[in-house]
């Protein structure tokens, strides 16, 4: 993916940069928020919130070449603040990943929808930290260096989480296959 031109130069208009970012990474941000547990009903607002924060911070952005890591860290903070707000207002807090991914999809093929449901089921069985690394690596195709940067953790920790997540996922796939065979 081509990195957009992000400039800290005050003479460079911010709006085009924001548009570039939205076009390139809007879907990534949307998926990330969902996997961070933001409910479908709140996703529009949170997506907008993330890009407003991006707009505010664009001049301060320095980590060129790590755009997705930067965006993901914003997603993390926005989703965390959102969850805290829900908790303060005593709303029904949906921390469960299950519910967050239950919204309608625009996938038209039955096979795609089934595959998506299967993928969500597998991800739901992972602890949040492992799921984060697994999704960023296997779904979003980020490098481990980017992931460690996004999660602010040592790269070895990221490798370890990925390794454990893969083990769990593969074991779950085997278990489900065995169930189907048994039936």
């Amino acid at each position, binding site marked *: 993916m081509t990195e957009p031109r992000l400039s800290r130069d*005050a*003479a*460079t*208009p*911010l*709006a*085009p940069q*924001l*548009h*570039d970012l*939205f*076009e390139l990474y*809007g*879907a990534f941000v*949307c*998926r990330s928020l969902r996997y961070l547990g933001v409910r479908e009903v709140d*996703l*529009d607002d949170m*997506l*907008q*919130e993330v*890009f*407003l*924060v991006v*707009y*505010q911070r664009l001049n301060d952005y320095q980590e060129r070449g790590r755009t997705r890591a930067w965006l993901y860290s914003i997603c993390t*903070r*926005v989703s965390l*603040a959102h969850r805290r*707000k829900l908790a*303060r207002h005593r709303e029904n807090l949906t921390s469960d990943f299950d519910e967050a991914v239950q919204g309608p*999809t*625009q*996938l038209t093929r039955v*096979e*795609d*929808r089934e*595959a*998506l449901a*299967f*993928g*969500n089921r*597998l*991800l739901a069985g992972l602890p949040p930290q492992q799921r984060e690394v697994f*999704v960023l*690596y*296997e*779904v*979003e*195709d980020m*490098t*481990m*260096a980017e992931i460690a940067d996004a999660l602010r953790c040592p790269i070895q920790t990221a490798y370890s989480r*990925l390794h454990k997540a*893969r083990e769990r*996922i*593969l074991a779950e*796939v*085997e278990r489900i*296959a065995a169930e189907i065979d048994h039936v």
Partner: protein
Amino acid sequence: MSDEDPCRLKAGGDAPPELVSALRALAHPGRDAERLARVAKTLGAAIGDAPPGTAVSKLGAMKTWLTSLVIAATTLGLGYRWVSTRSAQPTAAVPVAEVAELPVALSVDAPPVAIGRPALRAVLAPSGAKPEAAPARRSKRGVQPEPTQSAIEATRLDTPALDRPQAQDVPGASITTDARSTDMTADGVDDQSSQREAADRRPVAPPPPSELDLLLQAREHLRSQPRIALRLLDEHAALYPKGQLGPEREVLAIEVLKKLGRSADATHRSQRFRSGYPDSLYLRRLQSDPGD
């Protein structure tokens, strides 16, 4: 992928095929298309009054910027002479290039905000309406109505879509519209066009700039011309006292006040922000700012 990264499961290899399909479905690009289009409308639209497939142009943003210069010139007494000179030629039309060049000639600042780029317009027009190429749009506005005093006022507030006839925005431009109507009749324009022309003759109040448009422009002026930024923010506060981007406006205003050296005002506004938006994500930013 770096050399040390393990092979991805999606690449196949030993991974079960159903897992590979699931991972590909999870990353399906069309999954959130509708949502993205929705949010793009809210976010990018600078949008407010622009119909799908059209966009606020660089020129539209430039007009608002031009306003500051025109108002300043008027204050100095130059405006009076300019308006009266122009008033002597009510049907004369000003080419758009002339209007566009004025701020460039006097420019000491960054270029204006470009809003509604083709890529985003494509997102903004899910119905299939294609954005027109820039040269075609420019040719449509090859003739600009007379910049009377009311036009100056319209320029201050208006950020019109490029495709809309300019006369529609300016009450004082009916004479120019009449002249154009005659030309169009001579060209054999149909009844529908005549009705549209009739509608154009009616004075129409210029639509206000959108919330986001005002804030984007204020942001553009933040570093180089904080006074203009503050005026734009005040305009936002007046037009949208309960707007959705109120917190963003306040944070920007605090930055502008600090930039202007009005630290007492900035502190007061910051305190008001804390009490008004106790849950805001910007609080941490305000707290971490050593100037706060």
